[in-house]
């Protein structure tokens, strides 16, 4: 019965939302206003002249949007899918797929409006519901040279992957109905507000001068903190403590490769133009991922005697996470330091701290995205330089210690809000449908019990 209730409420949600949009009052859309302080991320230097669509910029952001989509499915799906036991592989692929499904719909109906309509400092408001007023002309406050809808769909792919990242924390033991409800509420009440604070016109963290080029706070710290909260409250997997070996590491390596590939769209696309800044972001992204993969493998070599494929893949992803906020503000030496540093911090977290405390962050969503994201956001305050991006700021190592303090504040705010709001949503979902699957179903595996399918056959 609870499932039916859930389905009905979801259906109602999606059908009533466009209706409410019609009622919502319209405010004139401010076009072509030059922002007072050019501090944050999602903007290119704005030309005062009437915004004009640039075909090169448009082509690159279209491509980038598709690249970021690829990160969730099949990139993250295979990366995570390979790490679970084979009785649960489909549940991971399904959760990643459904994240694209549910959040894409949520985003066009009201998510984009909540996150990006100028609104107040805390909330975007409902004026752009159903993409009302989000047309094919540029919206100069965000991107003066590409259609507004393109900016919207590029951002949609970020909104999709963020809740999908949290899957790593509760893999192999969450009810599917609870998952759907959780990501819908989480996207609406955690992701959308934080995206607004950091990136939205009038967002209060943006006004403070926080540097977050492609989503270190909004995407990675946010998802990483939600991950540790859900991992702690849902409890350990049945059988954790004995070994839970990955069932298909080739999947994981393919997934890591697709993530790396897609990340060029994620970071380089965040320049919102096909320009020099995009190239710089591309170069530092690749550099940080490479350095982090190599350093992780070397740490293992030294520490455990052998370098592992999973270690290199994990390190590369951690490097990509860490460079994300910094990718539009640091040079290549900064990227090397960020990449090398992240593997040290994440390795300590994943290989030493986690076993010591015994919490089951199953696929290290917190260990990699949370810790890597925090390091990346803070490192941006160390290594940022105006030589790379005049619209950015100098960091501590370039004579501006204040930037580090600003980054620290943004990290603290994100951590606290994400933790509290995630906990409330988790408890609400637990009351409504129950978060954790029954023990006997967990033992059989989620593929069979939640989806009535099997990922692999044994005979034929």
């Amino acid at each position, binding site marked *: 019965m609870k499932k039916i209730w859930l389905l009905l409420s979801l259906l109602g949600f999606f059908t009533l939302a466009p209706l409410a949009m019609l009622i919502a009052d319209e405010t004139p859309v401010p076009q072509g206003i030059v922002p007072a302080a050019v501090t944050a991320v999602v903007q290119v230097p704005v030309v005062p002249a009437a915004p004009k669509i640039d075909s090169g910029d448009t082509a690159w952001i279209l491509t980038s949007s598709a690249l970021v989509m690829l990160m969730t499915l099949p990139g993250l799906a295979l990366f995570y899918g390979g790490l679970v036991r084979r*009785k649960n592989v489909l549940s991971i692929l399904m959760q990643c797929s459904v994240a694209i499904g549910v959040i894409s719909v949520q985003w066009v109906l009201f998510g984009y409006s909540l996150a990006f309509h100028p609104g107040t400092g805390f909330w975007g408001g409902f004026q752009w519901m159903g993409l009302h007023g989000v047309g094919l002309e540029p919206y100069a406050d965000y991107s003066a040279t590409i259609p507004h809808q393109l900016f919207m769909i590029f951002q949609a792919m970020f909104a999709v992957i963020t809740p999908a990242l949290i899957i790593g924390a509760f893999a192999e033991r969450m009810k599917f109905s609870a998952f759907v409800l959780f990501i819908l509420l989480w996207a609406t009440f955690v992701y959308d507000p934080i995206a607004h604070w950091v990136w939205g016109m009038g967002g209060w963290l943006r006004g403070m001068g926080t540097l977050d080029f492609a989503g270190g706070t909004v995407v990675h710290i946010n998802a990483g903190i939600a991950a540790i909260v859900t991992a702690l409250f849902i409890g350990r997997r*049945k*059988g954790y403590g*004995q*070994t839970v070996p990955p069932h298909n590491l080739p999947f994981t390596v393919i997934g890591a490769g697709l993530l790396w590939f897609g990340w060029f769209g994620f970071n380089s696309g965040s320049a919102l133009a096909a320009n020099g800044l995009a190239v710089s972001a591309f170069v530092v992204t690749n550099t940080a991922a490479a350095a982090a993969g190599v350093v992780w493998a070397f740490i293992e070599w030294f520490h455990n005697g052998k370098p592992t494929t999973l270690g290199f893949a994990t390190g590369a992803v951690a490097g990509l996470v860490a460079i994300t906020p910094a990718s539009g503000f640091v040079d290549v030496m900064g990227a090397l330091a960020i990449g090398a540093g992240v593997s040290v911090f994440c390795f300590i977290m994943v290989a030493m701290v986690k076993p010591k405390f015994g919490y089951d962050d199953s696929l290290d969503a917190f260990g990699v995205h949370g810790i890597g994201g925090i390091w990346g956001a803070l490192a941006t305050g160390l290594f940022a330089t105006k030589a790379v991006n005049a619209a950015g700021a100098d960091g501590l190592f370039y004579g501006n210690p204040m930037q580090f303090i600003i980054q620290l504040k943004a990290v603290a705010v994100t951590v606290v809000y994400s933790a509290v709001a995630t906990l409330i949503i988790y408890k609400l979902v637990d009351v409504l449908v129950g978060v954790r699957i029954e023990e006997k179903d967990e*033992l059989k595996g989620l593929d*069979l019990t939640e989806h*009535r*399918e*099997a990922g692999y056959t*044994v*005979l034929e």
Partner: protein
Amino acid sequence: MKLVIAIIQPHKLEDVKAELYKADINLITVSEVLGHGRQMGVTEVYRGVKETGNLLRKVRLEIGVNDTFLQPTIDAIIKGARSSEVGDGKIFVLDMKECIRISSGEKGPVAIG
């Protein structure tokens, strides 16, 4: 000499192994098998079409033991694999004619341990 064949739930393998090690039984062969007992398998659905009677995944253990180790082996398997529900599996005990260690050519009880 006896050959013990046990069919158990896959997720009980780690527990059974732990119990066997405790009883000082370290030589086992494990394979993945399919089968079903009284519960008649599971139903899977592919594009709306139900497939009933699909076989369940099980794990099969084969352990060659000397007679003194037979009862401890059986006890260990039961201790590790029992949840008291349908589907816990079966243990079969067979007489074993001969056992030969390939590396040395030793035969009989001495070749088992």
